């Protein structure tokens, strides 16, 4: 049984909303028309790191993103950075988010298990294995 019963309060940063789900999966959701640079990416990972728990998987909803710089993509790839994230499930539901997701996976090469999903349900199902 999960130690979380309700979603925690949402942390709002420049480009994201971040919170811990009642299912023990952290969630981060991109704001509409967000332009994500390294600053916004750092702000986001700080918010993710501040969530309660030692280690947890992260569900990323990219819907609404307008652009993301290479520095930001590489930052999210976690390489050589301390993290609490055990896996990343990235929901891509439009041609633009699919493009961003694929670039992230193929060029930035995240160092934690990561996968693109067309629906949140499928992503959650996969992330459950990394709790």
């Amino acid at each position, binding site marked *: 049984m999960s130690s979380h019963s309700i979603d925690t309060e949402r942390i709002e940063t420049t480009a994201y909303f971040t919170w811990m789900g009642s299912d023990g999966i952290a969630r981060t959701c991109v704001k509409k028309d967000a332009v994500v640079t390294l600053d916004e990416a750092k702000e986001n990972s700080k918010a993710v790191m501040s969530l309660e728990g030692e280690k947890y998987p992260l569900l990323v909803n990219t819907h609404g993103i307008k652009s993301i710089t290479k520095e930001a993509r590489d930052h999210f790839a976690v390489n050589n950075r301390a993290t609490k994230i055990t896996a990343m499930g990235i929901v891509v539901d439009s041609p*633009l988010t699919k493009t961003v997701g694929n*670039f992230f996976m193929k060029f930035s090469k995240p160092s934690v298990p990561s996968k693109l999903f067309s629906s949140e349900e499928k992503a959650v199902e996969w992330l459950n294995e990394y709790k």
Partner: protein
Amino acid sequence: MTDSPSHTQAEEILDVILSYAKLDFSKQCELSGKDETVDAIAVGVNMLGEELQASALSIKEKEQLLMEIHHRVKNNMQIISSMMRLHASMYNDERIDKILNECQSRITAMAIIHEMLYNSSDYRSTKLDEYVWNLTESIDLAYNKKDIKVTKKLDIPSGLKMDIDTIIPLGLMINEIVSNSYKHAFKSNDGEYYIRIVKQDTGMTLTIGDDGSGFNRAEAKKKNSLGLELIQLLSEQIEAKVECNTVEGTRYTVYL
């Protein structure tokens, strides 16, 4: 006829792609918010430009590093060479002096290549005619005797380039052969040495020789001549065949 927004945006994307092809990464595609698919392509092109720019920078950094290495190798070789000169002057022994001078000459033959490589834009290969000219100038200076006039004839096609793995052994071979000409063929007479390179479809023929008195190969072998042994070893390293003719001067023909 007016262009549709998607058509205009596609033209702008094409313009950005053409800039990236010229390694100009100052432009980025704008998103219109009107056509999801075209916007996705625009974002993809922008990200591709960023990845290309990072790769281009990485290549540039590696080239600068390679240049720095050639510079350092050349400087270190010069230091070793200077140390040898210093040691030779300490002993006042003709035999030690001779051995160290020969070593110095071999080191210089290699140092010239590194110097030429870091001074050029191509850090992997160097121009053969320029290298042979620089190398022979260095040998002429090292063996120059006031009372003997030595002329050289170089016949090397211009623009011929050779990679570092081949030119170093080849340069050392030229160094040995020309140094031998100075030491043995022009001992007390004026003379001439020549280096010719002929490029063929299947390879290259290098001829190095002098108009001196020639030498007895059997005797040289008996004396365990390091120079001759080096020529043999170096030719094997570059998979070349060497022929030596000692009638009417000395002539080495190297088939590459």
